[in-house]
């Protein structure tokens, strides 16, 4: 087991407790950065997709996991990001400008929406955001000159300083671009969470009563969280637009919102890392199932081509995950790590779940 001797408050204030942790993170990013040299197109495209979903997942994580506000309408903010970015680029704005603007547009819209929405909570907020989603969807169809209406539009390809970042023509470049964005946003997000702002989010999530007694303005805090969450999601939407290259309003269905919800809950509510775990699950597991299915068919001669079986298997896996670890994959990962650290000393039943009971959440 690792023992850290803290010699200053900075040990706690820093993102990583020590150089070992920091080194691991740097190594991870470094490995991610050189992946294109080792992997083919299929894998690079998949990983890029996972990165984009992680970014979107982080957006929702801030809202659901860190401030305790539910949203069933986050696909709307993906859409706002995607359309803003594409529309700006279509009138000649360079990507480097259009992309942040897409995030800001989604964020500002989110913050405005939040003003009436912050008084709601839980399912009420979830359904209100769903309604918002329906309205945005309708607006996309109506705003045909900008959005291409039902027909949809093509996202222009990205060039920065003469270098091509097109998703198809130069997938690796596009991957690096996404990686850079995700690393930056993750860093900003992590910073936020270790600062007073992040603590005020948690305060609002865990006890409104206390938060108010501590002088936290609930409305402001929640609106801020809403705005930041939407901004992150908007950025993800812009990247998703470029990744998919063609989209119409049907890209941003309520199922996308639900998938995002899966990302954050299965990943582990309240942990930034959870968004990544969840994104990996939601993007990789269906592929894995498909590949295993093909394998079973070609090697064992098993015919598993029953329509819908893949999705069924995926659903059953989801159910399994939730039953096995209701608090998410990241929580499980922490336990595994703890177990490994303790290794010879760890008891097998150490993480046995003790009976737990819920109390009403209707009293806030």
């Amino acid at each position, binding site marked *: 087991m690792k023992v850290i001797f803290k010699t200053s408050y900075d040990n706690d204030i820093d993102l990583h407790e020590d150089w070992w942790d920091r080194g691991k993170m740097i190594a991870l990013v470094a490995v991610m950065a050189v992946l294109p040299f080792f992997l083919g197109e299929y894998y690079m495209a998949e990983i890029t997709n996972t990165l984009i979903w992680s970014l979107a997942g982080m957006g929702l994580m801030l809202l659901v996991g860190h401030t305790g506000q539910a949203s069933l309408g986050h696909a709307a903010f993906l859409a706002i990001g995607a359309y803003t970015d594409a529309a700006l680029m279509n009138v000649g704005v360079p990507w480097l400008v259009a992309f942040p603007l897409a995030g800001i547009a989604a964020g500002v819209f989110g913050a405005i929406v939040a003003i009436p929405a912050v008084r709601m909570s839980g399912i009420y907020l979830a359904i209100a955001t769903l309604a918002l989603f329906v309205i945005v969807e309708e607006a996309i169809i109506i705003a045909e000159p900008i959005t291409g209406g039902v027909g949809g539009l093509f996202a222009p390809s990205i060039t920065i300083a003469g270098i091509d970042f097109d998703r198809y023509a130069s997938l690796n470049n596009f991957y690096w671009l996404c990686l850079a964005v995700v690393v930056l946003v993750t860093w900003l997000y992590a910073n936020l969470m270790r600062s007073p702002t992040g603590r005020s989010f948690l305060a609002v999530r865990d006890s409104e009563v206390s938060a108010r007694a501590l002088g936290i303005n609930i409305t402001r805090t929640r609106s801020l969280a809403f705005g930041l969450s939407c901004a992150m999601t908007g950025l993800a939407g812009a990247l998703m637009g470029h990744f998919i290259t063609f989209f119409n309003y049907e890209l941003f269905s309520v199922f996308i919102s639900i998938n995002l919800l899966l990302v954050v809950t299965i990943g582990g509510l309240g942990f930034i890392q959870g968004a990544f775990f969840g994104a990996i699950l939601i993007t990789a597991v269906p592929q894995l199932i498909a590949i295993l299915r093909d394998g079973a068919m070609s090697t064992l001669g098993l015919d598993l081509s029953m329509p819908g079986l893949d999705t069924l298997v995926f659903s059953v896996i989801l159910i399994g995950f939730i039953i096995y670890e209701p608090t998410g994959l990241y929580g499980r990962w922490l336990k595994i790590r703890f177990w490994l650290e303790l290794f010879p000393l760890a008891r097998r039943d150490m993480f046995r779940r*003790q*009976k737990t009971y819920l109390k009403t959440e209707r009293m806030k």
Partner: protein
Amino acid sequence: MTKVLDIRNVETFYGAIMALRGVSLEVKEGEIVTILGANGAGKTTLMKTISGLMDPEKGTVEFNGENIVGKQPDHIVRKGLAHVPEGREVFPYLTIEENLKMGAYCRGGDIRDDIALVYEYFPILKERRNQSAGFLSGGQQQMLAIGRGLMAKPKLMLLDEPSLGLSPLLTQEIFAIIKRLNAEQKVTMLLVEQNANVALHTAHQGYVLEMGRIVMAGSCEELRKSDDIQEFYLGRQEETQRGQKRWKRRKTWR
């Protein structure tokens, strides 16, 4: 006297944290037994383990001769045990009367007399009978929780800090009620109480729980005489002036 409750070597965990480290104790019929112990000693955990709210990893809990480890709490309650939990745990959206009715959930028959009795003990509850329990003051909720426990007409009652948040007057009344129930209706009681003074005067037997272990046991009279008890639970003061030197004597059982 027969043993109503016989706990042998119980170990209970919260995940990796071991809260009870092999606790054994027994409660005989018609007795009031009290458990003393500092903060975090594991008193609440023990009570929850008995009533089935938590599952022990090891050990047995026998209630009226039946091993109830692993049984659902409702099963145990039906056998005649009532648990008045720490921190009140009333049903906030039910009215006071409904809360009391819930107390008699396992018991058929006429409960009107019993409700009337609870109202007699705590007249304020009667005044508020149709109000949601969530709006009661802390102490009023505590009265309700105790009243709800009484409604079950149990053979054995577990009381986890019944005097929490009650005024001195009410604390006295509660303990008078406890004594009366014990004497008149032969209800056996297991009592956790921070107010050791009252507890040791009310109960017959006492145990001291520290760090998940029983460190002392005996009749309440014996315990009252123990130096450690006097020092740590009864608040006997070395002769110091208010606000002056505060040093602590170490407990001798560690």
